[in-house]
């Protein structure tokens, strides 16, 4: 099995040993995360190279514990001097915080024992040739510009690759490393009609392995189709109608559901789902899974930000919330075990998806009859405490199951709790594209504001 950053990781092991030993000498427990990546980003615009960026960032995160008190810090200086300076500063800071029974390293039995090979690394993305990336970006943009004569301009097309490694160590003997890769192609064309109205849109593909990426041409054509389809958009009538969320917008509803179910919001009381465990939070058609162990999965990882082993879990079964995702702190606040969801500075999901239903997108349009088909959001109007949802949208007005015209300057509003309970059909078009993914969702009624 090939592995990137082998030498780097060897150096880290020594560095971590020294820093953790220094922590012990100061009477502290500690956790140290070291990470690095190599990134290539190529952007082209109208057939020419626009931007080339090659970087190799590194960073560290250090958390120290003194009994039931803890503070954290980070530094980009991955040297003994840099980390010990940080350690000494944190050693002073830890005296300032209050005792908190929920604070502490993970229980030893929660920690990952052996890191399985989840097939996250494609050697093709190491030293990916700049010229090849440029060719792919040019091809994707050209496909968009050639798709329709109304595609008159471009914000550009990009190809990015990244190869990363991260290791986590703590003073109770944890040492876990993971590495992987990803690549992406994105295209952002602008269409214009005879009235001079502009419509921009974009599309992308993002995968762990090069051979899983959609072809540049496919991405370009999809982006162009979306931009052209949005031309001549009008508004929609204000009123209560059914709303069909395409996968690229349904993912946001799923993301909000996760945020509201997460243990950190639950113990703070800042979610409408504080008392929802084992209760209905969605229609019976809704089953949601979080699976961090999918081979080649976009957000796959065998351990979380605290070294806790991850596993596949069902968040919502037939509409019923099964558990509150937790990191160590929120788990102890809620008198339970960590579910291994410390991620990105909070309680985060991995490969979160809503299971496929049975109907095709066309069948869903037909089932909706007259209503709004939402393909993009604009803005972020969501209140976690109440579930109130109000966002700007783009998409299409649908009558008798047929797309009638594109719409813009329209909002859809409702309450997430009601929206999820009013899911009357789930599409069969689940695709792992964002890392949080849903098939199309048909919601029986929401308020549309337009003209």
């Amino acid at each position: 099995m090939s592995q990137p950053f082998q030498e780097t990781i060897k150096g880290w092991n020594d560095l971590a040993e020294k820093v953790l030993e220094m922590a012990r000498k100061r009477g502290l427990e500690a956790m140290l995360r070291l990470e690095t990546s190599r990134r290539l980003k190529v952007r082209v615009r109208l057939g020419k190279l626009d931007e080339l960026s090659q970087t190799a960032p590194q960073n560290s995160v250090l958390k120290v514990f003194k009994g039931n008190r803890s503070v954290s810090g980070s530094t980009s200086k991955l040297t003994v001097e840099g980390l010990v300076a940080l350690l000494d500063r944190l050693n002073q800071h830890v005296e300032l915080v209050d005792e908190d029974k929920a604070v502490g390293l993970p229980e030893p039995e929660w920690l990952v024992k052996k890191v399985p090979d989840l097939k996250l690394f494609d050697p093709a993305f190491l030293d990916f040739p700049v010229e090849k990336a440029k060719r792919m970006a040019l091809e994707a943009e050209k496909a968009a510009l050639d798709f329709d004569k109304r595609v008159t301009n471009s914000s550009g097309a990009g190809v990015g690759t990244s190869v990363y490694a991260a290791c986590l160590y703590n003073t109770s003997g944890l040492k876990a490393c993971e590495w992987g890769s990803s690549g992406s192609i994105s295209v952002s064309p602008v269409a214009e009609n005879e009235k001079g109205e502009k419509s921009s849109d974009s599309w992308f593909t993002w995968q762990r392995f090069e051979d899983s990426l959609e072809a540049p041409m496919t991405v370009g054509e999809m982006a162009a189709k979306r931009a052209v389809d949005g031309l001549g958009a009008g508004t929609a009538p204000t009123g209560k109608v059914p709303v069909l969320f395409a996968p690229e917008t349904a993912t946001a509803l799923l993301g909000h559901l996760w945020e509201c179910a997460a243990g950190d919001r639950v113990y703070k009381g800042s979610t409408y789902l504080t008392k929802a465990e084992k209760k209905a939070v969605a229609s019976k058609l809704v089953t949601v899974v979080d699976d961090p162990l999918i081979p080649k999965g976009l957000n796959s990882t065998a351990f979380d930000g605290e070294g806790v082993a991850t596993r596949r879990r069902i968040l919502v079964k037939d509409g019923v919330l099964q558990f509150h995702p937790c990191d160590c702190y929120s788990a102890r606040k809620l008198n339970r075990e960590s579910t291994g969801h410390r991620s990105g500075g909070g309680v985060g999901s991995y490969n979160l998806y809503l299971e496929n239903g049975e109907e095709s997108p066309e069948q869903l349009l037909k089932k909706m009859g007259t209503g709004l088909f939402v393909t993009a959001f604009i803005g972020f109007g969501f209140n976690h405490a109440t579930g109130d949802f109000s966002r700007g949208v783009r998409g299409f007005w649908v009558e008798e199951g047929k797309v009638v015209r594109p719409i813009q300057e329209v909002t859809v509003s409702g309450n997430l709790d009601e929206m999820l309970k009013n899911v009357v059909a789930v599409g069969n078009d689940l695709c792992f594209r964002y890392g949080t993914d849903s098939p199309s969702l048909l919601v029986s009624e929401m308020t549309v504001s337009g003209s």
Partner: protein
Amino acid sequence: MSELSLEPWFGLTKEDAARVVTEICAHGADFGELFFEDAVSSSIILEDGVVRNVSWTEDAGAGLRAVKGDTQAYGFAQQFDLKLLVDVGNRVGKVAGDARKSVNLGALHSVPVRSGLYSGKDASVRAPAAGKLEILKRADAAARAFSPAVKRVDITLTEESRILGLLNSDGGLFVDSQPMLSVRVSVVAEKDGKKQQSMVGGGGRLGLEYFTDVDPESLGKEAARMAVEMLDADPAPAGQQTVVLAPGDSGVLLHEAVGHGLEGDFNRKGTSRYSGKVGEKVASELCTVVDDGTYARGRGAIHVDDEGNASGSNVLIEKGILKGYMHDRLSAAHFKVKPTGNGRRQSYRHPPLPRMTTTYMNAGAHTPEEIIASVKNGIYCRTFSGGQVNISNGDFVFQATESFQIEDGKLTRPLKDVVIIGNGPDALSKVSMVGNDLAFSDGRWTCGKGGQMVPVGVGIPTVRIDGITVGGTK
């Protein structure tokens, strides 16, 4: 200005930095630049009355950029090490070609920069934390004392100090030290099975002296007031409404409705709703909109942008007529105009982009009372959680977290949070009254673009807009 040196901050002499910039330009780049940053920040988190964390973050590095025509190459290093920087410079510079060419850097000189826009010479980030804890506890106590419905108070104080330096191939040199303080108070209120959460914040380019002007108690009380008040909020109406925007925070409207669309990169590329419209009427004649990097102590205040151009006060729209765009070096060169001091970046990890600083609308003639009294039926929006814009078609949204029904010229019931959607030029053409009460948001806004976050400010007087879409449920 006295002889400027990089060495005390970044351990590299001007001559060494010039060596790196020479390497960046060695393959024929039109322009090369070495940008230094040494940033520290610390956050104190008071969660539900418990001091949960006193964090410390250090991030230092140098960004290297080569520009050839409209093409740029970027790289960075995380050590101020001459050999490493020359290596990265060599790689970045090759975007201009393979053959080595001779390089003539301009004579090294300090670029003109503004001064005195930040308060606090040294950021208070390194000051002892004990006094800061006291401040947060005062805000916490005030929030809890406001009402028994207040169930939880979370407060975060973040202080930051960024030392920035730059040398470019014109020989231009600067060093700037930017402080930043931000405080956030969040309250969860519950009553009769209903729940609400509020968030208030403030700060700017200053240190703890912020709290000599703003009582910690007032922040806590305001967060509590808002959460408790919104417990009784009614659903907002759906559809076209007359909207009155409160002074201050409502400037988010300008940021989204016109600001982004007037950034030079979108217009250089011709992808903005406002492209090619300089000299045309794009707003009601009551609207004069300015982007001002010199608004002192604001989050958007800068002595110099991240490309070495002094900040400016730039009129974007004057009495409804579009006057010009906000530029970075690339877009200014494209339009053959002077840079406007809007080339900003999140950190050394990113190349600069045209970004807003503090964007505001000039005051008008009406009193706020007159404006509210003029509305028979509409909504009044006071605080916001953010917004977004679609550059090409001009659609923008902003989310009001605190708004009120206006009935017969009076504010009556509080309304649940709503999103308001409009189209830039259309919405600004419907501005029918502008107040004499221009106010600026207390620093709390961060703008995201192209994956980069930068602090910004907004300001606006009370404004009446006739007919804009409100995303309520009723």
